[in-house]
C-alpha cells in the first residue's frame, strides 16, 4: 500500500541539538544476529502448529476472463482435503480499499490478471493440497485484455472495471484511467521562453518486483466464535489485523497477529494476500492452516511496482539555470486503483528550486496484479526521466552535472512543486560531498562513462505506539509495533540507551504482537527509525520521569528538583539538597516497594519526518559487441539526518543502489500476447547476483532533521531513486546513446548503438 497521503514536512521542532552521543552512532552487534547466523530465527514459513493443515490456491491462467463456474467437487472428494473456500466464504458488503484488497485476494466474478486467486484448499499435506488444486474445474469466458499502460489508455482498450473513475480525471478519458493528480506553480510559457535550450523526451519503465527472498507465508487459526490467531511475515501486523478482520468478517480485536521475522519486504509486504485465505480455510476446517507461496505465485500474484510512461520537458539557460520543468506520469497499478502516479509527479522535480513547474499524474488500470509499494513508490521512475533530461541538457550545453544541480538545488525555504516549503534539507550538502569525492576525479577507461543523478523521498511519520518496561535488575525491555526489516531493533536500543543512560546490551527490543500495543502503522515510508525511534525516546523519557519521582520520594525533595544524568537521578542543584547520584538499578531494585513497576509509554502520529535526498555516482562500461552494461564503480551519498547505526544506514544505501541497478539493467515483467507473465521464476526474473556488482561505496551526510530529537531522517527508500538515471547517464557518457526505456538490456543497447 502506498502512503495514503503525503503530509507536508513541517512537524513540530523536536531536535535537541545534542553535541555528543554515547550510544547513538556506534556500530554495535544487532540483537537478532545470533539467531540469524545459526538458522534459528523464525521466519514466516518456519512455524508449525499441532493438527496443522496446508493450504494452496487455485489461480487463473487467463489475463481477463469471466468466471462462469467453479466446480470443486472432485477436489473435495480427494482423501485428505478438509476445506475449500471461494469468494462466498469472505465478508460481503465491503467498500473502498477493503473491497479492492478482497477482490485481489479472492476474485468474485472476473479473473482480472494471470495468477488471480479463485479458490483455495486446505489438506493434510501440501502435496495433497496441490494435487487438489489441479482437480478444481473452472469454466471461463475469455475477455479481451490489456497489460501496457499506454495501450490501456487508448479509446478502444478493453474496460477492466467500469465505474472506478474518480471525478478528478479529465473528461473524455478512458475508464481505465481511474485517478488524476496535478500540481505545480509559476508561468510555464514564460519559463520555457526564457530557456536557451528546451529538451522534451518520452520515457518508459517496466514493472519490477520487490524480489524479497522470503515468499509470503502465514499460519492461521480461526474458530467459528470469531476469535483468531495469525502468524505471518509482514511489514505491518496491525494493518494485517485490521484488513483480515474486515475480509473474514470478525472484530479486529478478536484477531491477534504476530509478525514473524521478515525475509525482506521493500514495500511488498505492506498488504495481505494469503493471510485472509488461511483464516477462512481455518474457520471452515476448524484447524490451523499454514500457507506458503511459491516463487511463481509471488511473481504472478503479489504486487510488483507500476510500469510507467512519462513525458518530460525541461528548459535551461546557457549558464545552467533551469527555467521551467514539466512532467506527465502515467502509471499502471494492475487491475486496481492507487498506482503511485501522484507520488511520481510529486517526487519528480523535488531536487530543483523552480519558478515554473507543472506536474501531472495518471493512475491507470491494466490486467496485471495489484501493484504494491516498492521502495519509494513512484520516485525512481520519475527520477529516471527528469534526471536523464537534466543530464542531456548539461551534456548539450557543456555544463558540469553537479555544478548545474547545485545551481538549481532545493534548499531550506524552497517551495516544492507539490506544495510544501522545505524545512532544513541536505541536498546541497550531498551534492557538495559528491563534488569532493575522489570517485569524481578517477580516470575512465574506453567505453566507460560516469553518470550522476539525484533522488528524493518524502519519508513518513505514521501512527506509532511504544512501551518500555524496566526490570528490577536495572535492564529494560521495549515493545515496538513495527516489524524489523533492516536492523531497527538495534537502533531502538541505541536510542533508549542514550536516554536511560544504561548499556545497549542491557536493553531488549521486541516486535510485540497486536494484543500488546495500540495501532502501529506499517514499517514503510522509511519511518521506523524516525517514528518508532521518536516514540522509543519519548517512552524512555516517560520512564525517566518516573525514576526521578522515586528518587525525589526517597530523598524527600520535590520531583522537579531531580534531574537524570548518566543513568542516575541527581539533585538538580545545590538548592535541591546534597545527595549522592542514585543509579537506575538502585531505583528499580526497590520499585516494588516504592510504588510498583516503572514503565514508559508513548504514542503519537509524528509529522516531522524530514525529507531525504541522495546523490549517486556510477561508472558503467558498455560492451559494444554484446550491448552488456557492467557497473564498475558505485558511490552513494545520502542525508541520514543522524545515523543511529551507521553500518545499517550504509546497508540501506547499498541495498537501494543494488535494487536500482537491477531495475535499470535487467529486471522487468515480460507479458506475452496472451497476457500471461512469462518470467515467473528467479532464473528469468533475474535480480542482481554477487558477480554482477562492484563494492558500493557510501558517504553518510548528516543534516539534522528538525522533527526528531536526535535529528534522524529515514534512509530506507531514497537509495533506489537515483540509480536508474545515474546508470542511463553513464551509458550515454560511455557510448553516446540516450536510453529512455528501461531496462537497458543488451538487445536494447545494441539496437540503440546500431541506430547511432
Amino acid at each position, binding site marked *: 500500500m502506498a502512503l495514503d497521503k503525503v503530509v507536508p514536512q513541517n512537524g513540530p521542532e523536536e531536535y535537541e541539538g545534542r553535541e555528543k552521543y554515547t550510544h547513538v552512532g556506534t*556500530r554495535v*552487534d*544487532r540483537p*537478532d*544476529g*545470533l*539467531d*540469524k*547466523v*545459526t*538458522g*534459528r*530465527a*523464525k*521466519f514466516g*514459513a*518456519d512455524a*508449525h502448529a499441532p493438527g496443522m493443515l496446508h493450504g494452496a490456491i487455485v489461480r487463473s491462467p487467463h489475463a481477463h476472463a469471466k468466471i462462469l463456474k467453479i466446480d470443486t467437487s472432485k477436489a473435495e472428494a480427494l482423501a485428505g482435503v478438509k476445506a475449500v473456500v471461494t469468494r462466498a466464504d469472505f465478508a460481503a458488503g465491503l467498500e473502498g480499499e477493503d473491497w479492492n484488497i478482497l477482490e485481489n485476494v479472492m476474485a468474485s466474478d472476473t479473473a482480472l490478471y494471470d495468477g488471480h486467486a479463485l479458490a483455495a484448499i486446505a489438506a493434510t*499435506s501440501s*502435496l495433497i493440497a496441490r494435487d487438489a488444486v489441479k482437480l478444481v474445474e473452472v469454466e471461463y469466458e475469455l475477455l479481451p485484455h490489456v497489460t501496457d499502460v499506454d495501450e490501456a489508455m487508448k479509446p478502444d482498450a478493453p474496460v477492466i472495471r467500469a465505474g472506478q473513475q474518480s471525478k478528478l480525471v479529465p473528461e473524455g478519458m478512458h475508464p481505465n484511467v481511474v485517478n488524476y493528480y496535478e500540481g505545480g506553480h509559476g508561468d510555464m510559457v514564460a519559463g520555457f521562453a526564457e530557456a536557451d535550450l528546451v529538451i522534451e523526451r518520452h520515457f518508459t519503465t517496466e514493472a519490477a518486483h*520487490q*524480489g*524479497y*527472498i*522470503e*515468499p509470503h507465508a502465514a499460519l492461521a487459526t480461526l474458530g467459528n466464535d470469531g476469535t483468531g490467531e495469525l502468524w505471518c511475515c509482514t511489514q505491518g501486523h496491525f494493518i494485517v489485523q485490521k484488513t483480515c478482520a474486515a475480509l473474514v468478517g470478525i472484530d479486529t480485536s478478536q484477531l491477534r497477529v504476530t509478525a514473524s*521475522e*521478515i*525475509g*525482506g*519486504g*521493500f514495500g511488498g509486504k505492506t498488504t495481505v494476500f494469503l493471510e485472509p485465505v488461511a483464516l477462512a480455510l481455518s474457520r471452515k476446517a476448524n484447524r490451523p492452516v499454514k500457507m*506458503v507461496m*511459491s*516463487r511463481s505465485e509471488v511473481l504472478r500474484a503479489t504486487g510488483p511496482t507500476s510500469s510507467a510512461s512519462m513525458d518530460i520537458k525541461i528548459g535551461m539557460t546557457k549558464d545552467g539555470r533551469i527555467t521551467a520543468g514539466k512532467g506527465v506520469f502515467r502509471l499502471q497499478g494492475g487491475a486496481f486503483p492507487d498506482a503511485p502516479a501522484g507520488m511520481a509527479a510529486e517526487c519528480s522535480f523535488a531536487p530543483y528550486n523552480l519558478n515554473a513547474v507543472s506536474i501531472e499524474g495518471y493512475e491507470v488500470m491494466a490486467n496485471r496484479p495489484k501493484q504494491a509499494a516498492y521502495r519509494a513508490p513512484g520516485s525512481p521512475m520519475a527520477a529516471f526521466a527528469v534526471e536523464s533530461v537534466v543530464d542531456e541538457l548539461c551534456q548539450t550545453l557543456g555544463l558540469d552535472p553537479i555544478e548545474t544541480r547545485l545551481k538549481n538545488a532545493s534548499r531550506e525555504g524552497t517551495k516544492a512543486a507539490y506544495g510544501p516549503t522545505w524545512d532544513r534539507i541536505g541536498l546541497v550538502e550531498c551534492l557538495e560531498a559528491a563534488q569532493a569525492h575522489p570517485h569524481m576525479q578517477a580516470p575512465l577507461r574506453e567505453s566507460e562513462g560516469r553518470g550522476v543523478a539525484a533522488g528524493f523521498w518524502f519519508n513518513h511519520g505514521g501512527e506509532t505506539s511504544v512501551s518500555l518496561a524496566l526490570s528490577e535488575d536495572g535492564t529494560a525491555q521495549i515493545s515496538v509495533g513495527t516489524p524489523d*526489516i*533492516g*536492523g531497527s531493533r538495534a537502533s531502538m536500543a541505541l536510542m533508549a540507551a542514550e536516554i536511560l543512560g544504561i548499556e545497549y546490551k542491557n536493553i531488549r527490543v521486541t516486535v510485540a504482537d497486536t494484543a500488546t500495543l495500540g495501532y502501529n502503522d506499517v514499517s514503510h515510508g522509511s519511518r521506523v527509525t524516525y517514528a518508532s525511534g521518536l516514540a522509543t525516546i519519548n517512552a524512555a523519557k516517560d520512564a525517566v520521569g518516573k525514576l526521578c519521582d522515586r528518587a525525589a520520594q526517597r530523598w524527600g525533595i520535590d520531583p522537579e528538583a531531580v534531574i537524570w544524568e548518566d543513568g542516575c537521578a541527581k539533585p538538580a542543584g545545590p538548592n535541591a539538597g546534597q545527595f549522592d547520584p542514585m543509579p537506575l538499578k538502585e531505583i528499580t531494585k526497590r520499585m516494588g516497594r516504592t510504588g510498583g513497576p516503572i514503565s514508559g509509554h508513548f504514542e503519537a502520529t509524528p509529522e516531522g519526518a524530514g525529507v531525504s535526498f541522495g546523490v549517486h555516482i556510477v561508472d558503467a562500461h558498455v560492451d559494444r559487441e554484446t550491448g552488456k552494461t557492467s557497473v564498475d564503480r558505485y558511490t552513494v551519498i545520502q542525508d541520514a539526518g543522524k545515523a543511529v547505526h551507521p*553500518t*545499517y544506514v*550504509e*546497508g540501506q544505501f*547499498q*541495498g537501494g*543502489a*543494488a*535494487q536500482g541497478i537491477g531495475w535499470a539493467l535487467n529486471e522487468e515483467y515480460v507479458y506475452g500476447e496472451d497476457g500471461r507473465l512469462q518470467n515467473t*521464476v*528467479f*532464473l528469468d526474473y533475474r*535480480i*542482481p*547476483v*554477487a*558477480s*554482477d*556488482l562492484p*563494492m*558500493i561505496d557510501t558517504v553518510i551526510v548528516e543534516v539534522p532533521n528538525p522533527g526528531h530529537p536526535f535529528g534522524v531522517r529515514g534512509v530506507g527508500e531514497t537509495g533506489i531513486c537515483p540509480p536508474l538515471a545515474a546508470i542511463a547517464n553513464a551509458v550515454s557518457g560511455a557510448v553516446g546513446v540516450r536510453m529512455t526505456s528501461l531496462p537497458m538490456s543488451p538487445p536494447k543497447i545494441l539496437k540503440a548503438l546500431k541506430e547511432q
Partner: protein
Amino acid sequence: MSKIHVTTKVNGDEVEFLCDPRETVLDVLRDHLNLTGAKEGCGTGDCGACSVTVDGRLVCSCLMLGAEAEGKEIATVEGIADGEELHPLQKKFIEYAALQCGICTPGILVAAKNLLEREPDPTEEQVRYWLAGNLCRCTGYDKIIRAVMDTAAEMREAS
C-alpha cells in the same frame, strides 16, 4: 503413494525418516526433521537460500529428492557452530552487518564455508562468483563479500 524409508546423517547425527517420493531434501529437513534453517526462496535452484552440503558438495536442497539422501552426510547451517562457539564466518557476518533481513544468511554461510574449505585465500572475484548462486536482495552484497574475505584472512592467520 507409499513412503520411502531413508537413513542418512544430518550434521553428524544419524537420522531416519519416511518421505513421499516427491519430497525434496529441503522438505524433509524443514517438515520432517524440524531443521528450518535452510529456506525455500524459489524451489527451482535459483536463489540458494536452501544451500546445504551433501558429502561435502554444495547443493540446493530444493533440487535433490529426500530419497536420494540415503547413506549421505548432509550439513546445514544448524551444524556450522561448534556448540556455543560460533564459526568465524558467523561472527564476521554479525560484526560486518552482512545481513539485513537474514533470510539468505543460512544459505550464504553454508556456501561461503564450503568455499573457504576449498580455497582458503580467495580473491574478491572468486568470492563473488562462488556466491553468485545465493541471492540477497537487501545488502547489495558489499558487506557479505567483505565479511567472507576478512574471515578468510583471519582463518589463514590462525592456522
